[in-house]
């Protein structure tokens, strides 16, 4: 149960990182990725996945 980021779509804006309630998004050299073990898909916290809702590019933060 986790989300992932499609790297080739990612603009590197970091909007997802600000919103993630689990601190599950890391960035290295402008590339963002989701730490599988930390991601809860926002269950029990928010009705929708925050990374996907904040991301400017469709279908970039998706179910792993």
């Amino acid at each position, binding site marked *: 149960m986790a989300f992932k980021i499609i790297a080739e779509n990612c*603009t*590197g*804006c*970091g*909007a997802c990182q*600000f919103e993630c309630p689990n601190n599950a998004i890391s960035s290295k050299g*402008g590339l963002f990725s989701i730490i599988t073990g930390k991601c809860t898909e926002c269950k029990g916290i928010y009705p*929708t996945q925050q990374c996907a*809702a*904040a991301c400017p590019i469709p279908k970039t933060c998706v179910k792993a």
Partner: protein
Amino acid sequence: MPQNIVALSSIGRFSGALCESSGCSSRGTCGSAADDLPDAVWQKIQDHPCYSEDAHHYFARMHIAVAPACNIQCNYCHRKFDCANESRPGVVSEKLEPEEALRKVLAVAAEVPQLSVVGIAGPGDALANAEKTFATFALIHEALPHLKLCLSTNGLMLSDHVDRIAAIGIDHVTITINMVDPEIGARIYPWIFYRHQRWEGIEAARILHQRQMAGLEALTARGILVKVNSVLIPGVNDEHLTAVNQAVRARGAFLHNVMPLISDPSHGTYYGLNGQRGPTPAELRKVQDQLGADAKLMRHCRQCRADAVGLLGEDRGAEFTRDKLGEAKPFDPAQREMYLAVVERERADRQNAKEAAQVAHKIEEAPVLVAVATKGGGRINLHFGHANEFQIYEVGPDGARFVGHRRTDKYCVGGHSEPDAMATSIAALEGVAAVFCAKIGERPRQRLKEAGVEAVDAYAFDYIEASAITWFAGRSQSGTVAATA
């Protein structure tokens, strides 16, 4: 290496020759539109190139790209693509962390004594990245307290941050407001991200509108200067901008700047891909005229990139990329002081020259447009072939006034063959009677003549307005006007 508008090496020479004030108040040097502003406002904007047409001849700004994230989607924006040749908001080549941004500002301040303003305008939204934005401003304010701090935002998160904006001494904020009617907003903004939720359609536009108005009111209540930018989108909000103007003026915005939509399929934006066109220069002018003095004040707006550096119309960003910051020399306040003294004298001289030229020639002829190749300082000081843009002045019996600028370069030439630069320049000079430059070659002069544009290099390095007025008077007396009319 590009030259400063007044070479650093010559500042000492200038300062030695500084004369006493010529009796022209700093206010009076500013020409037309600034006279409509209250004194307190003029004091705040007189060195701000984006807010004062006069200041844009003398002072530089830099944008630091510390805010890549955004919380709304606009149909005119797509930040996936970047090209160093592009000049439009939302585009940067290099994102910076706050400490890197400080190093960049220090490096630019040491090289560019004209630098008076540091702004954060994205490339996303400054307040969608509030922690980085405020951390950056705090570092800069501590290191270089003379720099004005400036912030641009879409307004969605503005009212949450008004206390911090005031506390850190930001006295200029720009809000982009394209509508005050959510139905129109729904055609501009497909969605917003607000309070942990994505909102779409009219609901999204309604929230954005309410938040923008609340933020604007909160800022003006604190005495912070607020400029409103509107993107003119033909067929969407062109007839609506009068209502926007009324709404933002009623809430205390001191300037309303209308900018043309930049739309091209290659930018990948929704509008670009769906055939939404930008306005023609005539359409833009019409809306600006409808809004009165406000829009006239802002005709020098260049719609800068979110990492632009330098005088408006130039971009020295490429000289200050991260990899070149290592060898930066320290900022020298004395150099800045000397530059300010030079500017004060230049402003007075330029105004005096303009007034003298106006008194000397009273004639009855229709005004014409002239183009000027300049690299700043209010002077004709650029070679025709080096101009990326021309400043356009209207000159007539009542004097000369700045009415806008025209670019001669293409937004992006990557992947295409070199365009015919001369053809591009001639197209940009449509409707212009003469082009003033420091120098021009014989072949370009001839090609301009064939296109009906007179090339004038007789006023090289002189003040723009005074030269244009003198030229106009001489042209009228020699019968050139009658011959071409």
